[in-house]
């Protein structure tokens, strides 16, 4: 550890987000309501600049900056890229619903701050930075959940905040315990310290920290907020809270278990495997008989979190664990945003039945929705299929064949509820008229995301090798 690596240039993508958020907030305070789109433009420019900076940084060797607190390595680059692409997607799909809204600037700025927190979660290599990132990835999203000030939104925000506060405190206690018995806060030192620490204390600390991160991921037992927040908020907000913090939380989990916990001190692979199993089973079963599309997608994201957690369970047991996690997370983010974009295009169609006959009126959007939903199932050649393939392979390779079998059964179960949505879309028009899309931007986002979901799957051969380099450690 040396003190000379305080290199802000290594944090350009994060600084772009922060800068654009601060400038945007000030700008929004002065701009008239119908010119607040400038704030959105600034945010999009910052995200694009961040993507370029990420690409440039990915070409340089990995490094730890600010002591050993923040890692700039493959998982961080991937987190930045996924989160920034998701930010761009959400900025685009929310144009129709938020342009000219009196809190448009707040929407954009809160999104940027939360995204910054998610990226920091992915790169944090120190328990204290992890806590700070957790808060930054939580508080803006609590506010965002109540952004439209509707009755359901307020209730969602309160529920989101309460579960976050509860699990956040647990996480803080866990961090205190881990750093206490580990004798440090940096992941590398904690790992060395825990090797000699009492197993019970380390175990309790780890479980508490996992609890906080599972809240971000939307995995059991931190999943209670997901259905209410996803169903009670506008589609754009729902897309944000089910995508961006999930990616950050998963990479944080992966880094924590692979860098900060000794492999032999605890049976943490089994612990995470059980969490993954329970999460996917619960998410998929609970999605079965949902009638509103956002609640269905909410449980689907819990199910997907379970599949993603498999890769965390086999971290450092299978070579493919990291590319599996990052690739699946990227594919999931694009596909999930695409599905929510279709929902955002039909703000009046809340239930599955409201989508009846959609294919007759808007065949292109129906196809985009089908591609995204089949993509979430994991039908080849979409990105999530490649993700699932690599995750299953990593699971079998890591000695968790039973988990792969369970994931297969869950995948088949998930087909049932996705088809419950697809079938009416292509069915005959019901008593009411088929819904009409109310926004071009949301529809456009859906097309782009559907195309990306397929294209990204076909390009798996190019992308997977880029994700293979293990996290930097010392």
């Amino acid at each position: 550890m040396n003190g000379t690596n305080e290199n802000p240039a290594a944090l350009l993508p994060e600084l772009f987000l922060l800068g654009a958020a601060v400038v945007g907030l000030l700008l929004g305070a002065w701009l008239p309501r119908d010119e607040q789109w400038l704030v959105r433009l600034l945010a999009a420019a910052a995200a694009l600049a961040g993507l370029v900076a990420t690409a440039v940084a990915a070409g340089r060797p990995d490094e730890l900056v600010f002591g050993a607190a923040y890692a700039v390595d493959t998982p961080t680059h991937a987190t930045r890229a996924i989160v920034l692409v998701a930010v761009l997607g959400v900025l685009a799909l929310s144009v129709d619903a938020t342009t000219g809204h009196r809190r448009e600037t707040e929407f954009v700025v809160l999104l940027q701050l939360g995204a910054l927190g998610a990226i920091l979660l992915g790169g944090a290599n120190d328990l204290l930075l992890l806590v700070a990132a957790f808060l930054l990835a939580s508080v803006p999203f609590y506010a965002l959940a109540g952004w439209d000030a509707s009755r359901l939104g307020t209730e969602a925000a309160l529920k989101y905040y309460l579960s976050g506060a509860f699990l956040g405190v647990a996480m803080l206690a866990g961090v205190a315990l881990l750093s206490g018995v580990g004798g440090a806060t940096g992941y590398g030192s904690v790992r060395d310290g825990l090797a000699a620490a009492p197993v019970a204390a380390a175990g309790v600390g780890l479980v508490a920290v996992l609890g906080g991160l599972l809240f971000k991921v939307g995995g059991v037992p931190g999943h209670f907020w997901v259905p209410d927040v996803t169903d009670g908020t506008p589609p754009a907000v729902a897309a944000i809270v089910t995508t961006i913090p999930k990616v950050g939380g998963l990479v944080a989990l992966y880094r924590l278990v692979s860098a900060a916990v000794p492999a032999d001190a605890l049976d943490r692979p089994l612990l995470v495997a059980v969490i993954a199993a329970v999460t996917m089973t619960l998410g998929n079963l609970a999605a079965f008989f949902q009638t509103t599309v956002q609640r269905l997608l909410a449980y689907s994201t819990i199910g997907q979190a379970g599949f993603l957690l498999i890769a965390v369970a086999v971290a450092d047991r299978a070579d493919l664990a990291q590319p599996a996690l990052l690739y699946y997370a990227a594919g999931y983010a694009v596909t999930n945003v695409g599905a929510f974009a279709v929902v955002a295009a039909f703000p009046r169609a809340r239930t599955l039945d409201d989508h009846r006959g959609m294919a007759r009126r808007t065949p292109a959007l129906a196809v985009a929705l089908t591609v995204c939903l089949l993509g979430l199932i994991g039908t080849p050649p979409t990105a999530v299929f490649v993700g699932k393939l690599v995750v299953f392979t990593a699971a079998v390779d890591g000695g968790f064949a039973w988990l792969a079998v369970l994931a297969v059964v869950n995948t088949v179960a998930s087909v049932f509820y996705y088809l419950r949505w697809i079938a009416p879309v292509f069915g005959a028009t019901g008593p009411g008229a088929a819904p009409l899309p109310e926004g071009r931007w949301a529809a456009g986002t859906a097309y782009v995301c559907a195309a990306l979901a397929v294209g990204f799957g076909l390009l798996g051969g190019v992308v997977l090798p880029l994700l293979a380099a293990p996290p930097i450690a010392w």
Partner: protein
Amino acid sequence: MLSLIVFLPAAVAAALVLVPATAPRRVFTGAWVATSAVDLALVVAVWLTPGTGIRFEERVAWMPTVGISYHVGVDGISLPLVGLTSVLFAACAVFALRETRAVKGYVALFLALQTVSLGLFVALDLILFFLFFDLSIVLMYFLIAGWGHGERARAAALGFFLYTFLGSLALLLGFIVLYLAAEPHTFDVVELAAADPLAGGGPVAAFALLAIGIGLAVKTPTVPFHTWLPPAHTEAPATGSAILAGILLKMGTYGFVRIAMPVLPGTWREYALVAVVVGVVSVLHGALVALAQTDLKRMIAYTSVNHMGYVILGVGAAGILAGSDEQARQLATTGAVTQMVAHGLITGALFLLTGVLHERGGTYDMAAYSGLAARTPRFAGAFAVAAFASLGLPGFAGFIAEFQIFTGALASAPVATVCALVGIVLTAALFLRALHRVFLGAPAADRRVADLHPSEAAAIVPLLGLATVIGVLPRFLLDVIEPASRVLVELVAR
């Protein structure tokens, strides 16, 4: 060349999507007929090109980090099925000239399905195989749900999707085990067959074969995984049923000869008796349940279970070394592949014929029809020919196939073969009974059923003609299959 054959229909489908749906339906059906004719001509060109082993190979790295490549090629096992696919799709294209419901989506779906089917039979990479396997399920789902018979069709399509999707994922698990067992890790079928990664046997090899076997058995389908088949067939449109029975079921049996047998030879030999038993049970169960049906289409659906049972019996017998010589095993394998082609042609024709019947009479219930032979001589003639071909009368392709399977299996599995022979008698009984009910007797006074339309005849008669040619002059087909089945038998016996 193969990529052109495979992706030509998909390219045409993509182009048709851009044509507005209000265009005259002849644009769509015409494009489909033309495309399938061109594809058929290309396949014939491939067929006539001399050569042995795996030909027209193309291999491009796709995801090298996980050992996946775009690897295609044809040999004597896949070429007959590629040929069958292009013939049957061409027949469906001609048959569909009379289709009027949402023609644009219908034609685009079928063209995509043709790409998927051809791609599966030429795929030499497990993931490529799986990709086409899965997409066939998705496309067939939309076909049954969208163009089937109403609300019940959607329920049947859902059952079909869930059941066969479960099978496909079991298959994927098996593939992953094979991938991890091979050193270096690969999904390439040719490399895996050469390496024989699980030669040591043991629980891992048994698990891999179990997973792959279940996946393929669901698609084939064999008893006890066949329950999705009757509703899916009954509710699907005629062309959908023809493709489902003629092509999609073959994906299961083809998987056995392309993947399970050469890649897991030792394990296959160990559990070959299971395949034999499952095959015989499918033969008898399919025939007996078909005998009990009053719904004509359901009856034909169950005969598919029966006919696929012979294939499973053949591939099982090819894995039993004790008491059989190489020639017998080769005969059983060749018979199994021939049976796939024969069943595709004959059952395809039968399903198209039942489609004609449903269009005229509005029901598949045999009791609703009587004495059709007097009013519709061409239809009755075609149906009689198809029925006799299906029950295995000499002179038709089915006889050649079943004769080879029985001769090849007799030495190694005599009891099973004798039991399976009973299936032939049962099939004969049920087809004769159906002919008797529907075509003979006094014509029902209130049903005015029109005879075969020229375009329907143009779709169905060539299928029956080809089944007859294979039955009378089988060498052109067997000369292609036999070298490949010799290679396969050697791979299994090593």
